[in-house]
């Protein structure tokens, strides 16, 4: 029992460090694409340490303080229901994709609640945009994930990983149409450009994060770091065959960096355009993917 808890704590720390490193490398990559030098790849770790060391930070109330805590809680809970490489937490058999879908909402909700008490209209506009965007990408993601799920008749992520254990059996090959739609949905879920209306630093001053500083911002950084691993990990598990420790890390890394490279050269959609885009193209693509699965079966 104690060993198990220590193991879990180790995984959480590992994932946090990994996520922070991913974020740092992404900053470096974006900088190089923009022909800047960029910060060192471990900059995000330093940032978090600095933020936690700060004191006398502005607080707008209890919920404002708890918001980042709930957000971090949300991603941590989701983490335990997703198989991470060869490590299969006990819980990935105890909850399936739909559980993860709903657990993933806890984190944005926590951030939204906390930012709401900050009483800054920029934050609320960001959240309203985020929820609207959710109406776009969530459905696409749901439909694209349904394709392998219906084919293998299981909603358990752990089982889906098992059936595609060897390289040529990755779900991305038979379900490439659905996987494509799923990747577009993931792009919106991660809030990368052209879907960064929630943050939109030039319009609404970083949206939900506008009032946060010090350890609150540090917690939100941690949330973001774990969120990267959870979201890319989910897609890697469903479409790219999971893998062992090393391959899992490599797959999530390459997936993330691909999204970041697209992010680096894209402008931003207006929020209405973004939702409409999701309803127009990826939705149709995911429906075609589903149709093919239905015929193929």
């Amino acid at each position, binding site marked *: 029992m104690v060993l198990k808890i220590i193991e879990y704590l180790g995984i959480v720390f590992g994932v946090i460090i990994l996520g922070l490193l991913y974020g740092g490398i992404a900053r470096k990559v974006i900088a190089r694409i923009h022909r800047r030098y960029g910060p060192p790849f471990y900059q995000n770790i330093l940032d978090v340490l600095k933020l*936690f*060391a700060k*004191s*006398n*930070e*502005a*607080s*707008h*109330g209890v*919920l404002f*303080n708890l918001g980042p*805590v*709930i957000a*971090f*809680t949300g991603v*941590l*809970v989701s983490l*335990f*229901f997703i198989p991470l490489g060869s490590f299969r937490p006990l*819980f990935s058999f*105890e*909850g*399936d994709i*739909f*559980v993860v879908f*709903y657990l993933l*909402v*806890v984190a944005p*909700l926590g951030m*939204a609640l906390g930012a*709401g008490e900050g*009483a*800054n*209209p920029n934050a*609320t*506009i960001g*959240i*309203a*945009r985020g*929820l*609207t965007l*959710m*109406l776009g990408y*969530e*459905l696409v993601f*749901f*439909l694209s994930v*349904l394709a392998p*799920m*219906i084919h293998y008749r*299981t*909603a*358990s992520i752990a089982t889906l990983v098992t059936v595609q254990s060897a390289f040529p059996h990755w779900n991305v090959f038979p379900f490439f149409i659905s996987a494509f739609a799923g990747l577009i949905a993931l792009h919106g879920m991660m809030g990368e450009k052209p879907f960064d209306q929630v943050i939109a630093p030039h319009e609404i*001053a970083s949206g939900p994060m506008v*009032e946060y500083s*010090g350890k609150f911002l540090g*917690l939100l950084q941690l949330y973001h770091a774990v969120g990267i691993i959870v979201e890319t990990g989910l897609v890697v598990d469903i479409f790219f065959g999971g893998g062992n420790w090393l391959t899992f890390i490599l797959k999530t890394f390459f997936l993330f960096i691909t999204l970041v490279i697209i992010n680096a050269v894209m402008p931003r959609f207006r929020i*209405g355009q973004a*939702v409409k885009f999701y309803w127009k193209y990826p939705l149709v693509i995911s429906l075609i993917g*589903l149709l093919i699965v239905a015929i193929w079966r």
Partner: protein
Amino acid sequence: MTLFYILLILFVGGILTYLGAKISKHLGHAIAFTSSTLSLYFHSILYGKLYGFTIDIGLFKLHAVAFSPLSWLIGEIVVVIGFLSILASFKEKHSDFYYLSVQFLLAGMLLFVNAYDSITLFLSLELVTLFSFFGIWDGRKESAVKYLIWNLLGAYFIVAAIAILYRFTGSYFMNEVHYLGKAQKLVLFLLLFAGFAVKSALMPFHVWVKDAYRDSPHSFTALLSGAVSKIGIFGYFLIMFYTFAKFFIGAKYLQLTLAWLGGITALFAGIYATTKDDSKELLAYSSISQLGYVVAGIALATPLSISAGAFQFVGHAIFETLLFFTIASVAYRTGTTRMTELGGLIKKMPVSFIGLLFGIIALSGIPPTVGFPGKWMLYESFIIEGRILLAAVIFTASITAFLYSFRLVYSIFLGPLPSKYEDVKEAPFNFTFPIIVLLIPLLLFGVQPGIVLYYIDRFLSIFGIGKIEHSYSYIVTSLGKFNALYVGIVFAAAFVFAFIVYLLGGRTRKVHQFDNFTAGEVVDESYKLHYVDDFYLFLEREIKGFLKLRIESLYDWLSKFVDGLGDAVRRVYSGSHGDYIVYLGFTLLLLILIYGGKLWF
């Protein structure tokens, strides 16, 4: 006979409340409190028993038997919410007749869920309609009339079906119908379904809900949404799995049609809810939307989907009532339910805020609350059955729930506090007590869904539908597994961990609400920093065309058409003698033409 005594307590208590209130307001309150407490107590001790009664009222006998395990479950929901609603309504201003109508309404609902013959069924349904009408009447008369008209329409459907049923079978009992043809069964089924659909506000019979919920007294709305809507749901269960069981289980296309009706109701009502400015209107649409899930679930008629629908309506009874009570407490202190006029109340009304927060968490179906297991089973059952588009529609509907529920919590409790609410206090005990009471099942059934599933299992086995695999804490389907207890434990552990990380950071200092980032502007009261008007304007812009499509315009057109027709008919009576002589002459001519001269012989 215990059930009979409960009804007697409520009827006598209602009349005594009315008379007592004539003497003193407090006496009336005391009687209403006593009778609702007694009914709650006596109904609770019926747990697990077989109960019922038969009384002869001259023309026919009334049979009330708890023949379905859902009878007790819905009955308990009714008495609990009734008790809480009466408790909260003591603080509001009501006419003396209000308490009588609430108690009669409770009696009517209890009788309905135990009705064994069609006369009792219809009688109790009329009791429910009439006395909920009086309840809404206490708020605003126009909405009450609208409610009455729609529910009378439903009653006509039901009375027609009952009459035809009697004509064909010669029996007043709601037993299974055997001797009818398929077409006859279909017509009867649809008539009864439409009748109950008005009560449970299924689209396109939902138009009364917005007005009735918005304008009824605040504590009464909780009862309307939490308990009265369940009458329609119980009616569905009755006709689908009892009266027309064999017919319905076999009718795949009918099942699909009704399931789609539920799915479309869920989606459309969810989208409308995001565009509403009044918190009670928003919740009215959210209530319609959530009941759409229930219909979609039970109409699909597999053991898993029925369990999903049944679990969802128990959840709906808990969180929707909770939400309406929090709105009631806000309205009691501020005097408005319009979200654009509220804001920042979290610091003033923390208990109401916690109630609303957990209410929306359950409403949007986030585990580990009571909202999740039902939705989870619903998705699984749709996908097992291959109803993927329906699953997608329901999923989209549940995303709209995130949209409108965040709008609700933000506009009322978060954001800046308007200066006029500086000295608002927490709502009195009468409002906070229901909120705290309802939080318990909301979390308990979330981590131990088996408590509710136990009843549903019994229902499924008694009516021979099948069973689902579950224990107190987990549910297993052929697709996957959901262990609510583990989710709850992991949640708690992760929260503790995140909180420890939070404590690692430095100290904080409390700042004023206007001490925030405004890009250098100096802000004061004159700046409106509360982002509440047109919250989802950018979404509304994209779905402008859809929002224009409203069923109300069809009804308006219909009412105008009937109005015009009546006007045209009225013109016949012009008042001039010459016209009447011409009519007489034409009539005679017509008669001669029709009878071909036979008239003369």
